């Protein structure tokens, strides 16, 4: 009797145990769900904060540029919404300064920068990635080491060099120092290293010279990386301010970034609203270009790091 009694006790206690453990596991599942939700919310909050942080200067400039009444420009957060919206300031950008001339200068300079950077990076990266020669790693390390130097270090030697070449106050003077960049060489080297050796061997057996292998096989296969490099280069060339402002003195040759700053700011500045409208117009072409090519940009980076 007592044995069966104790057995019942054991049974009931084990049933209780299992109920408790079920409850515990349910609690654990709930808390895990809550944790996951919290983590997700945190991630989104972080991303949204970052998006606001990066977008707010542009949104502010856009709102101020669109406000025909500039009285709220300095009121936070009221200035983020246009007051009496209109395109008056945008129209004035074209009359107050030679905006189209600057736009043309920027376009020409960016175009040649992109072409030259791509050609030089490809030509420099191929031997570093694919040919065997003594000192290869040393050269690559030396190129990468230039990334550590602040760009200001280059200003005086470059200025003196260009002076001797007679390139001061010219388009070429403003862009040539940017042609050979460690970043481009690094990016293309990574891209070329991803290409299977068999593909190069196949081209070699097919009778391609090294240059034919490079231009007919390596370059087309690395198109995404080249697209990414082009976009990076465009953004840098378009926004380049310091160097063109030092080299170019003739107003007609100035790129947008320098022209807008020279004409619309300083002691004789007409209006903050006008500057903001000009800034928006300056950024717009890059944004449009980026919108159309971002697919390549992202896949190019994929290829570059995989």
């Amino acid at each position, binding site marked *: 009797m007592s044995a069966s009694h104790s057995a019942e006790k054991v049974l009931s206690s084990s049933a209780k145990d299992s109920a408790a453990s079920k409850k515990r596991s349910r609690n654990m599942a709930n808390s895990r769900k809550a944790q996951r939700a919290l983590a997700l919310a945190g991630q989104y909050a972080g991303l949204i904060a970052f998006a606001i942080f990066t977008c707010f200067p542009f949104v502010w400039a856009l709102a101020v540029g669109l406000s025909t009444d500039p009285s709220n420009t300095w009121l936070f957060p009221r200035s983020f919404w246009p007051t009496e919206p209109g395109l008056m300031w945008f129209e004035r950008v074209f009359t107050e300064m030679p905006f189209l001339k600057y736009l043309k200068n920027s376009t020409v300079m960016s175009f040649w920068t992109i072409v030259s950077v791509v050609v030089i990076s490809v030509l420099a990266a191929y031997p570093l990635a694919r040919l065997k020669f003594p000192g290869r790693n040393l050269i690559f390390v030396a190129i990468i080491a230039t990334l550590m130097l602040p760009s200001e270090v280059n200003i005086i030697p470059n200025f003196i060099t260009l002076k001797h070449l007679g390139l001061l106050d010219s388009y070429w003077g403003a862009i040539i120092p940017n042609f050979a960049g460690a970043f481009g060489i690094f990016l293309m080297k990574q891209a070329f290293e991803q290409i299977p050796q068999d593909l190069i*061997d196949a081209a070699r*057996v*097919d*009778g391609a010279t090294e240059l*034919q292998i490079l231009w007919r096989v390596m370059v087309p296969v690395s198109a995404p990386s080249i697209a990414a490099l082009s976009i990076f280069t465009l953004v840098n060339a378009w926004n380049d301010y310091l160097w063109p402002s030092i080299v170019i003195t003739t107003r007609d040759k100035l790129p947008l970034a320098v022209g807008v700053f020279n004409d619309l700011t300083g002691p004789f500045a007409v209006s903050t609203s006008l500057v903001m409208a000009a800034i928006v117009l300056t950024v717009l072409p890059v944004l449009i270009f980026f919108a159309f090519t971002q697919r390549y940009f992202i896949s190019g980076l994929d290829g570059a790091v995989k």
Partner: protein
Amino acid sequence: MASVTLKNIKKNYTKDVTVIKGVDLDIQDGEFVVFVGPSGCGKSTMLRMIAGLEDITDGELFIGDTLANDVHASKRGIAMVFQSYALYPHMTVAQNMGFALKLAGTPKAEIDERVNKAADILQITHLLERKPKALSGGQRQRVAIGRAIVREPKVFLFDEPLSNLDASLRLNMRVELSKLHQDLKTTMIYVTHDQVEAMTLADRIVVFNAGVIQQVGTPLEMYENPSNLFVAGFLGSPKMNLLEAQLVGVEQGAAVMRLPKGITVRSAVDASRGKVGDKVTLGIRPEHIQLADPQDANAIPARVDLIEHLGDIVLAYIEIPGINEIICLKLPGHMTGLKYGDSVRIAFPEKNVLLFDAEGLAFKRSA
């Protein structure tokens, strides 16, 4: 078409790392030769040296009558098919196949004609305008072969071309490659680690191990009379059964060995260069072991460990008491009665037993 002659070819990567240790080989015009061996044995390196993709450290390579050591890959008159297909992803199939001709400055009409002819042979005409990414593995492999055919080379080189294909496709392509060789009658050198491919495709097989040729011969010759333990163990699936034994009698045209537990086995080999008491290795192929009558006193008692039914054949893995190695038997497919734990008696027919000395070299068959 051309012969290929290798004279004392060596390959060092650094002073101490030698991957090919002096290879001599004559490949006849129009012959299909298969290099086979385990991974890292140097067979692919050998092929890449013939292709001109690796430098030859020492020795002479003749393609036809021309010393080709320093001739550029594209000028050797070879075409190569790679394991990874190595198709140019940005070109269509037709462009891939015609690329070499285009680089050589061949007129467009001729390129088109030769591409179409090759596509016809390989039945890929409907794929000519596609890019490689829109093709299946088998189609890609055909294109890779087509690219080689278009060049009308003197020698075809294949570097494990079928190892990325699934089993059934591999079988199909194997048959087609064999047919292609019959049609084109061009010299072909084929590298594989798959001994079935080697056995089925080759006019002659070259077995490599550790940078040295182990044996050269026709597939059946190699299968029947392997010159050493490595070749014996490498060719054949399932592998040859190899058992350690001791030589106890050398007779005219036969040898008598003793396995552990006093089991004696006879082999029809000329063991006159061995002497009684030598350690030897006995080899017998799975299909040659016979199941003996249970009353046969001379047969060896054994126990079944595992049975595999493959439909056409039955593989029985058996254990002889006192012997560590598991022995494999290949039996006809209708022998389905055997099961795990059964006691059987087996016999090693004298004429099928091979014998290898302590260095692993085979004793010659006496018959």
